[in-house]
């Protein structure tokens, strides 16, 4: 039998045919490859969160090989001389070993911690983006809820991880957490003793937190992230308004190759930045804090940044104890309000916001176009109010450090926080609202009268006036131009955004191209826009 010649060029085709015969994937695969993604730099914020989570998983797996989740007492005998001979928990000893006696362990620990901080930060900034642009509106309310849940589950992941090394700082945090649970009316002592397996700290809390931190919480996070991305995929991204962009389409690039390649590159950049931070910037130097002992704490004991607002609310809370004189007497400690009730309200308000807004505006339509924050002053004001509230609380979480560094009375800092918490958010609302209205008005003004050119002309009768470059062509009414309608997108406000000044000069040390001859006199014929900015961009293609 004659052997058939092997045809290399036909292999991919044959394999593809074989696969498709069995699984019928050609059409869905083409749909996937062709899916169109709109692009805007702010869409990367959510991706930073996703990429940090991947890095958290990678570095976390490394750490589990060396970490020992046990509170059995051991005597440290590792490389870090100052703690040698100290009795401590096995968890703390193994965390020290990861830092000093495992090759490359310290950088992994630090990368893990930095990416956790970045994960939470990216979630928050991404949420602000979604909030201020109205991307949470129908049909995306579910994803907004999942997103808020992701923040709180991430919070839980962070806190359980923070407690694992069992060092002086994390033990103090755990002690406060136990006090928070204790403060819950009626069931508090049962909750605490059930979670700690008896009185604080007991002997099992670390192993319980460990299984929560490496299995339960990451599993939950993975499931939520999967649902979050699945919904983004199904519902497609929102997009900014612009020429050709409607509520019913998506304008952008197909997923492959360029969009996907950009994502891959960006992942490596995030990874690289975290590696640099993990190597260069020390974080959570647990060997300086010592093992946790219930009677030791130092000044400037601060939690990670995303917990600081709760620490701040705890510090600002006045000592209001509620006594209930029934039987032996019951008590609701002041700790209950800032640490249980306040987060409860925050979760509820933020999660339900899309429904509250839709109800207030009686808005049942689907929205796929984003809104500029200035166009929705009430929502932008509310957002500014929330951010101010958060910042006052976070700063109050470090008010002892501020008091110390700036030589302010600590009690004055607390009072400033208490007053600031009540006064500043409404003020932020008012100021933001007015700024939004001002920006709106300026947009309308430019649309009606044109862009300021900076050219002052003297009229024959001696008056001076500034020449404006109109955005619209003459409309036949005799006096030049008509006002353009506002399209919900950036209004060009500088001459070079109109192409009138030629392209910006490129090159670092010297220009690599000659600046275009810029016509400056309004008497010149109309200026041709820059060719490469013709398609989807800013205002000029709306002419």
């Amino acid at each position, binding site marked *: 039998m004659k052997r058939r010649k092997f045809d290399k060029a036909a292999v991919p085709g044959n394999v593809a045919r074989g696969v498709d015969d069995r699984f019928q994937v050609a059409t869905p695969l083409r749909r996937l490859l062709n899916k169109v993604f709109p692009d805007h730099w702010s869409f990367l914020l959510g991706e930073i969160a996703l990429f940090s989570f991947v890095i958290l998983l990678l570095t976390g797996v490394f750490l589990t090989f060396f970490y020992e989740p046990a509170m059995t007492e051991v005597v440290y005998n590792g490389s870090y001389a100052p703690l040698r001979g100290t009795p401590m928990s096995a968890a703390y000893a193994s965390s020290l070993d990861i830092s000093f006696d495992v090759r490359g362990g310290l950088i992994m620990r630090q990368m893990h911690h930095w990416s956790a901080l970045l994960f939470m930060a990216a979630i928050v900034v991404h949420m602000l983006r979604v909030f201020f642009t109205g991307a949470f509106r129908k049909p995306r309310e579910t994803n907004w809820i999942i997103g808020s849940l992701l923040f709180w589950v991430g919070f839980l992941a962070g806190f359980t991880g923070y407690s694992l090394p069992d060092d002086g700082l994390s033990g103090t945090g755990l002690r406060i957490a136990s006090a928070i649970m204790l403060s819950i009316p009626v069931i508090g002592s049962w909750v605490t003793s059930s979670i700690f397996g008896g009185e604080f700290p007991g002997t099992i809390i670390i192993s319980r937190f460990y299984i929560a931190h490496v299995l339960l919480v990451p599993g939950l996070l993975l499931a939520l992230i999967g649902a979050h991305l699945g919904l983004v995929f199904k519902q497609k991204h929102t997009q900014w308004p612009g020429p050709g962009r409607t509520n019913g389409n998506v304008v952008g690039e197909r997923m492959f190759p360029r969009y996907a390649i950009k994502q891959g590159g960006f992942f490596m950049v*995030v990874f690289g930045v975290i590696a640099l931070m993990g190597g260069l910037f020390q974080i959570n130097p647990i060997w300086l804090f010592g093992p946790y002992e219930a009677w030791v704490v130092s000044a400037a004991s601060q939690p990670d940044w995303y917990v600081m607002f709760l620490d701040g609310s705890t510090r600002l809370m006045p000592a209001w104890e509620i006594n209930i004189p029934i039987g032996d007497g019951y008590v609701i400690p002041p700790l209950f309000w800032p640490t249980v009730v306040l987060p409860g309200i925050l979760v509820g308000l933020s999660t339900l916001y899309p429904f509250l807004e839709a109800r207030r505006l009686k808005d049942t339509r689907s929205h796929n176009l984003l809104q500029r924050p200035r166009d929705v002053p009430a929502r932008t004001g509310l957002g500014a109010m929330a951010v101010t509230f958060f910042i006052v609380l976070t700063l109050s979480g470090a008010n002892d450090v501020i008091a110390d560094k700036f030589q302010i009375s600590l009690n004055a800092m607390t009072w400033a926080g208490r007053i600031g918490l009540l006064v500043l958010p409404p003020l932020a609302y008012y100021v933001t609202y007015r700024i939004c209205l001002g920006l709106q008005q300026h947009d309308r003004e430019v649309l009606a009268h044109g862009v300021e050119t900076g050219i002052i002309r003297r009229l024959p009768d001696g008056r001076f006036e500034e020449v404006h470059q109109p955005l619209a062509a003459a409309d036949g009414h005799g006096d030049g131009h008509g006002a353009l309608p506002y399209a919900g997108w950036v209004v060009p406000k500088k001459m070079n955004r109109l192409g009138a000044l030629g392209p910006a000069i490129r090159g670092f040390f010297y220009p690599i191209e000659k600046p275009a001859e810029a016509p400056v006199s309004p008497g010149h014929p109309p200026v041709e826009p820059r060719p490469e900015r013709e398609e989807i961009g800013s205002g000029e293609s709306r002419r």
Partner: protein
Amino acid sequence: MTTHTEHQAQQGREPLDVNTPGLSQFDIVREGARRDDIEIVHYEPQVAPGSKAERRLTRTVASFFLLTGLAATAFLVVYIWWPWEYHAGSGGDKWYTPLLGVTLGVALLGIGFGILTWGKKLLPKEVSIQDRHEGAVASDDRIITGQTMLYMADELGVKRRPLLGISLLAGLAPVGAVAAAPLVGGLISQPHKNNQMFTTGFAPAEGGQKVRLVREDGRPVRPADVSTGGQITVFPGIDHGVSNLHADSPTLLIHLRDSDAQESRRANERVGHGDYMWGNYAAYSKICTHAGCPASLYEQQTNRLLCPCHQSQFLITDNARPIFGPASRRLPQLPIEVDSEGYFVAKSDYTETVGPDFWERP
């Protein structure tokens, strides 16, 4: 608006036969996209093939990848051969983690920027428009699916035979609880076992033996050990008294100055703690009644004790009354005396609950 009109012009057009000879690859790609309701309205290379700009960009991308190779090799070299074992002082091992970070970071950033430059600068730019099909499920389909589901429910016949449904619910609800019971039940722990919330290590032993106040290293404390105006942290002199097993027990033993001690004694008498002090010595729980941090910053001049976690401040000369911050309850006072051998002992356990507050605290 050009893009939009062009897109609209494509609506309602005949599908292209992809088997037509002479079609370019891009024609087929565009046709595929059209079948997915995607219109590629703009597609152009950013650099002319073979141009100087293209060669320059290629070199840039290549050098990013080569940089990655160098940095990754450097990472491996550092990882293997750099002295990494910790030694006190300022040896080369202090550079180990920073060097790993720099080499790994540069390697990863090299790939990242290389890929980004490749994707952003070398690949053709495009603008595509995809329809969303918002609410595009035909209302017919909705009706059919809805009716199918309702029909299925009717088939089950629960509507006609309500007892089935009720008994099923009544039967299933406890089964759900059965699933949760082992986990919750296993975790539940009675908080009032051995009266643990209300006792500390200072509770006298079975024979009524009073518990000594000891230091961190277990040595008992004599009055002469604490200088005037000074304070030390003491623990119950029992097994594991110094460890976290008795996290509620750490106590601050303060030697007050004469005038402060008098003031303190008067304040004690007001609340019925007349005999809690011994001489000029007073002992207060170190565990903050607010959130349980050790309140350990003692200001000698004002006799204030500050908790560094939430800034509660207690005035020691007034029975450790909270005078600022979120704490609402005094630090409990430990009644102390000196035994026949001259060491401090606790007369009894704390007479108030130690540590953060909870619902049942009497």
